[in-house]
């Protein structure tokens, strides 16, 4: 187990450097960011030159990358164009997005798995068909439509929620945005669980458990569900990273100032320090989530532990 973890950790190093380099190159290909700083007029050349040297933009890209990575290891992610430290931006943005992601994942787990189990045990029945159609609709409708619709109905028409959240939103403010963010994944979780449950319901060990006279609840939760969760856990694990990075749309709709907002702003203003910094952290989140998934496998299915 220990060696397995170490190997996984070592694998993260090239992935980390590769992704940051790629992002760095991509942002740089987009052109000169200083040109956009002065609005519809030309920056005066002397100031532009000075800004360029201040942000290190006058050096070749490889040198910029090396300096940048060197700084990153000392915890310095550089400065955004508005004069704020990128670490400062991260300190405000990540807690909000983590809160949003937690809400979304809880929805996925609670609603998704519940519905999956129900439909998996009752396949072909009206409940199953209804949920299948519903998930199909959710998957087919883009997030921004669901988001705007919920915002319009709950926020404007019925006044149950505020259409936009406050600057430092609490968990209850994030419930609706979290649900919107989770919606598509939630549908996938439902379907994954359903299939998995339906498949395993016919397995020998379930029949044995039933034959032993175990209570139905115990059969479903301890035997059936535990074995059916592996693909679902994989999905949810990788989804954590996707939710954090992919929250741009949801965050825009509900005016949440999280990671998505900072990334969007960074890309729009072509602020490589912000974009690369945030993506670096997201990459780490992705890698960590994957690692945890792999470790969870071992917990769920002891056979994997010894393989």
């Amino acid at each position: 187990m220990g060696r397995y973890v170490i190997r996984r950790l070592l694998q993260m190093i090239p992935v980390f450097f590769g992704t940051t380099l790629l992002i760095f190159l991509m942002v740089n290909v987009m052109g000169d960011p200083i040109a956009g700083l002065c609005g519809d007029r030309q920056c005066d050349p002397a100031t532009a030159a000075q800004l360029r040297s201040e942000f290190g933009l006058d050096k070749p890209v490889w040198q910029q990358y090396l300096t940048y990575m060197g700084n990153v290891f000392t915890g310095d992610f550089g400065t955004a164009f508005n004069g704020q430290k990128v670490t400062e931006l991260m300190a405000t943005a990540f807690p909000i997005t983590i809160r949003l992601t937690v809400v979304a994942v809880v929805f996925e787990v609670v609603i998704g798995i519940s519905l999956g189990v129900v439909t998996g045990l009752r396949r072909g029945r009206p409940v199953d068909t209804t949920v299948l159609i519903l998930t199909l609709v959710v998957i087919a409708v883009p997030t921004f439509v669901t988001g705007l619709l919920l915002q319009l109905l709950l926020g404007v028409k019925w006044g149950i929620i505020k259409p936009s959240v406050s600057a430092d939103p609490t968990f209850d403010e994030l419930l609706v945005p979290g649900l919107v963010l989770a919606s598509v994944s939630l549908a996938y979780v439902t379907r994954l669980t359903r299939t998995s449950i339906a498949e395993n319901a016919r397995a020998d060990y379930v029949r044995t458990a039933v034959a032993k006279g175990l209570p139905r609840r115990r059969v479903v939760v301890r035997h059936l569900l535990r074995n059916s969760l592996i693909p679902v856990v994989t999905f949810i694990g990788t989804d954590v990273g996707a939710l954090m990075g992919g929250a741009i749309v949801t965050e825009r709709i509900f005016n949440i100032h999280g990671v998505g907002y900072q990334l969007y702003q960074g890309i729009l203003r072509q602020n490589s320090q912000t974009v690369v910094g945030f993506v670096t952290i997201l990459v780490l989140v992705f890698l960590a989530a994957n690692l945890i998934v792999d470790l969870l496998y071992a917990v769920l299915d002891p056979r994997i532990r010894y393989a």
Partner: protein
Amino acid sequence: MRGATQVRWAACAVAVALTATACGGGGGDDGGSGGADGIVSSSWGDPQNPLEPANTNEVQGGKVLDMVFRGLIRYDPKTGEAENMVAESIDSTDSQNFTIKLKDGWTFSNGEKVTAKSFVDAWNYGAALKNNQKNAYFFQYIEGYDKVHPESGSASAETLSGLKVVDDLTFTAKLTQKFSLWPDTLGYSAFVPLPKAFYDDHDAWLSKPVGNGPYTIESYAKGSSMNLRKWDDYPGDDKAKNGGVDLKVFTDNNTAYTDLTSGNLDLVDDVPASQLRNVEADLGDRYINTPAGIIQTLAFPFYDKEWDTDDARKVRQGLSMAINRPQITDQIFQKTRTPASDWTSPVLGEEGGFKKGLCGKECTYDKAAAKKLIDEGGGIPGGRLKISYNADTGSHKEWVDAVCNSINNVMGDNKACVGGPVGTFADFRAQVSTQKLKSAWRAGWQMDYPLIQNFLQPLYYTNAPSNDGKWSNEEFDGLIDKANAETDKAKAVTTFQDAEKILVTEMPVIPLWYQNGSAGYSDRVDNVALNPFSVPVYEEITVK
């Protein structure tokens, strides 16, 4: 038994969904009391640069500076006319040496007196190259600017030699050239005074700017919100009529608009284009649509030989006549733009130099004449007009396509004009400012101060900073110089207009339309208006 479990599961899911919506409704604040202490909540955008007066060159940061600072001059929020604010008088006998006297009794909100030194130090700071201030060029007319801010290399002086403090309330400014309208430019936020705290602890000041305006900053969470409160001891006569303003950053103006319609926000100063169709139904007379000092144009590359010929001049005139401005402003902009018929803006007023119809038939849609002119000029250089624009913000695609359609119709050729999207604004600006574009591009100009000079000189004077197309015309330059030296304001304006008339025949850029400011407000507030810069006049807003 089985049925029971099923019901329980369903009940669970419903319960979760219900709590989700029910909990989300909590935590509402009603914005406090009304009347003179009422707080106005307003939409805001994240300022692009640190909030230093000489470093703020866009509307969002400017909005705050306008609330927190007062300079020598202030532009009347209704007429745009320059009026003395902190200045007692700004006198000159030769249009080149100015004596500025300040009113007594002005202080910063931290108690420090506003003196001549507060201005001179602030201007020196703004002009100095080492401070990286994006508005440094506003000080370019003051003698010594080329020393503190050389075009290349390092500065050879720390302060502007043209500025001298005479006594506590008097200072003098010497310009490098005659410029009679110079005092009228001093209302721009780059010229405001700064307190000592600005230099003593710069970071602390930036996180909570201190000024001499009707509002003070109570709290500022960078990137998300700013709470401004009325300054009770404000010495000026434009005291705030509300208790304060809460600015809230919105990533998407659609969300801000939704917040307004659901009653969570009092003021939105940028109605999203997609909502223009519903705005009258949603807000009725609480929707404002008034002219702002912004003009949009099509610019051409004069550094490219093909465009800098006499024939190309005819083509540009023809293209101008091939654009159906009224149709596009009606259908695409829902009348939030007005077809342009000169190169300035209606906010200047007749006296300030706006002249409706100055461009004449050259800016009027005329299918036959347009085609004739373009053909006479030998057709569009390069065979096809490509209009470059940035596709990331501002929804330029729609109108560029409409302009192209209009031109294609006239030419009877589906490919005579095409749009050329560029991914980001930064990339677009980089291509424009490094002369990479070989055909037309969208251009826009937001005035710095309501003067006809500001609509002409920075844009069309030879090698002027925003003359991106590198157009050059000796006669035009001569008239601008003459107008600047004119001591009589009315005469100066007519001379500027004479210069503007050259633009009709040369058509260095095609004027498209004047942009309006649009805003909407809730029924909680009253007396909402936009100033000529399309910024709400916050201090005048009253809360019911």
